[in-house]
């Protein structure tokens, strides 16, 4: 009797929960007369989900032609999820993605060329021209995404720790930085001046070696006039050796070799270090963990000539996926991209997410003018000493290369398993070969 009751109870629980869950899936491409347009955001968290849901609700209320649907994915889940969608031909209509991933998706024929739509866009003139140039260079003349924000490479420091350690001047040059790194790196006490990034180090690493060598006279390009990669020239090898010596000399924590952004930020926020190099989008995280007002920003480190090199404008973009074939009508998807890259949406998102807009119409708004951090980014953008490093993201394999190979090689260098020359020779050879393939295909 007891068992029967137990079974009956279990079944009842499952049935009720199942009813509550609404376990069935009822999806269709049209909702009533409206055409459904699915949008996947690539780096969702609680705040961005709320902001996007509100924007999409507004857009749906403003027109009757399309029903826009939003889904946010955690940044760690998105690449796998979208790869699966490409493989199984179940792509949404619109995705957002980082600049570095665009050509990986283009290589899989997953994105639509938006050049003609971009040319007709009424807010085109508001977009930062550098962004437009970067996107065009990326796509070999074609534009595959509508830009909405960009990351400016900067340095963060902890003014309270600077004061406590008697550092009166914020380092502006690599030489001064090295001096401080040596002076305050103390493994016995577990305190350091700097937090080095060992995982996905490309932005910091290239900023360092290009600045150190003054780009070897190639103005931030990875290639010479014969399309040979220049980064294994002796001056670059010396630059990389100097950068790796920070770790080898124990001026940074032993864990640095495994530092990704989160670990680097953890060291900085815990007061283990007092100086980090990262981009402007990391500000929200630092602000959450260290507290607003407890950190300051400064320009990237310069060389003896006063010039500093940092990655070129690499905006995050909204892309239309090639889920209906080349000749299909993508108006609904493009409208969503233009709406989300437009002044109103970008204003709302950048305020909430602490990002830097590329739509210059936002620069006149009070929220932008009153922000304490944006003036520095504007200053850098217009600084004649700022030289943009032209990361070759147009090479389909570059994004994967910097995520995997570069991390492994840089870690091997830090641990003394490879020399700077070996590492840079390997990278240069790879990039030269990939560039040759790219030019051949073009």
């Amino acid at each position: 009797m007891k068992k029967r009751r137990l079974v009956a109870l279990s079944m009842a629980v499952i049935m009720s929960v199942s009813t509550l869950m609404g376990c069935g899936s009822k999806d269709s491409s049209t909702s009533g007369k409206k055409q459904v347009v699915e949008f996947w955001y690539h780096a969702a968290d609680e705040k961005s989900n709320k902001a996007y849901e509100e924007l999409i609700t507004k857009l749906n209320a403003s027109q009757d032609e399309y029903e826009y649907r939003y889904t946010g994915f955690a940044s760690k889940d998105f690449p796998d999820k979208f790869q699966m969608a490409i493989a199984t031909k179940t792509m949404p209509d619109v995705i957002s993605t980082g600049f570095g991933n665009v050509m990986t998706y283009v290589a899989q024929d997953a994105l639509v060329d938006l050049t003609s739509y971009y040319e007709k866009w009424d807010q085109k003139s508001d977009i930062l021209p550098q962004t437009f140039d970067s996107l065009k260079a990326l796509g070999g003349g074609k534009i595959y995404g509508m830009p909405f924000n960009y990351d400016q490479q900067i340095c963060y420091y902890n003014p309270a720790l600077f004061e406590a350690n008697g550092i009166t001047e914020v380092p502006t040059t690599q030489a001064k930085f090295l001096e401080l790194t040596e002076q305050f790196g103390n493994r016995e006490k577990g305190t350091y001046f700097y937090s080095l990034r060992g995982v996905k180090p490309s932005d910091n690493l290239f900023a360092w070696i290009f600045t150190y060598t003054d780009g070897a006279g190639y103005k931030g390009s990875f290639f010479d006039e014969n399309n040979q990669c220049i980064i294994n020239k002796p001056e670059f090898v010396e630059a990389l050796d100097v950068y790796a010596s920070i770790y080898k000399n124990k001026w940074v924590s032993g864990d640095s070799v495994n530092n990704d952004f989160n670990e680097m930020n953890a060291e900085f926020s815990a007061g283990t270090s007092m100086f980090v190099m990262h981009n402007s989008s990391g500000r929200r995280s630092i602000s959450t963990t260290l507290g607003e007002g407890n950190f300051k920003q400064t320009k990237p480190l310069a060389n003896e000539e006063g010039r500093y090199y940092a990655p070129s404008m690499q905006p995050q973009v909204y892309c239309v996926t090639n889920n209906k074939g080349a000749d299909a009508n993508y108006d609904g998807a493009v409208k969503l991209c233009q709406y989300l890259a437009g002044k109103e949406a970008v204003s709302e998102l950048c305020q909430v997410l602490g990002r830097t807009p590329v739509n210059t119409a936002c620069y006149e708004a009070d929220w932008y003018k009153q922000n304490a951090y944006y003036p520095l980014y504007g200053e850098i953008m217009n600084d004649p000493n700022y030289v943009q490093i032209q990361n070759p993201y147009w090479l389909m394999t570059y994004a994967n290369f910097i995520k995997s190979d570069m991390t492994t090689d840089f870690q091997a260098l830090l641990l003394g398993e490879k020399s700077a020359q070996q590492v840079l020779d390997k990278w240069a050879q790879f990039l030269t070969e990939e560039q040759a393939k790219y030019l051949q295909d073009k």
Partner: protein
Amino acid sequence: MKGKQGIKKVIFLYLPVIAFIIITLAPFYWMIVTSLKHSTEVFSRPLTYWPKEFTFENYSKLFSGFGFGRYFLNSFFVSITTTLIVIVLSLISGYAMSRYKFRGKGFVYLLLLCTQMFPAVVLMIPLFETMNSLRLINSLWSLVITCSCTNLPFCLFMMMGYYNSIPRSLEEAAQVDGCSLLKAVFKVLMPTMLPSIIATGSYAFINSWNVFIYATAFITKKEKYPIPLALNIFQGEFNTDYAGLAAGCVVALIPVLILFAMIQKNLSGGATSGAVKG
């Protein structure tokens, strides 16, 4: 003499046990303490081993803004349903594999063993295609079906081991006394196997409670997220809400802890009862 033995006991029993307990509990302690701190205190230096200022904000945020209750229910549904399906099927099939000789039994055995050798990533695309054609994408049933299928072979092996450890004469005696085969299995064998059933069920429950890889493939709608997928939202592109994540992990852990507390007695016996054939 007594004093010497006492010292020996301290060195070889109490100290290792205490060290083991500390090592085991330290991460849980840290997780709970982190969940009760403000975000800024998580990284404050010197590190605080006890919150300077207690806050339950991370927990209230979970259920108000984050909608954790929904994710909790989703995980609960997937785990309970999977567990029931796996127990019933492994009970029946385990009996067949243990008691009957049939042509191809060795092949079936090998086939079941092979299913355990594929990593989930390899199965993702074919399973996605299957679920898509069954219109089960964004349905919790896709997870129930997948978790049941992936857990079943191992649970079947476990159950088969338990059946093997019970003498056949037990159900034969019941049949001599007038029981049908099914009655003999359910009335006579099952009560003796209760600890084993609980051990098998726990295995299936915990595996499906922690389902992540398949969930990333089949579930895109936020309202259908199971807990592991929802917890990932705390890790943004350039920021991780460690305090919120810790609170989420604490809540996610509660059902598993309750389950273990309830079945602990049965589990220790059940997990090993089929290990050695008597």
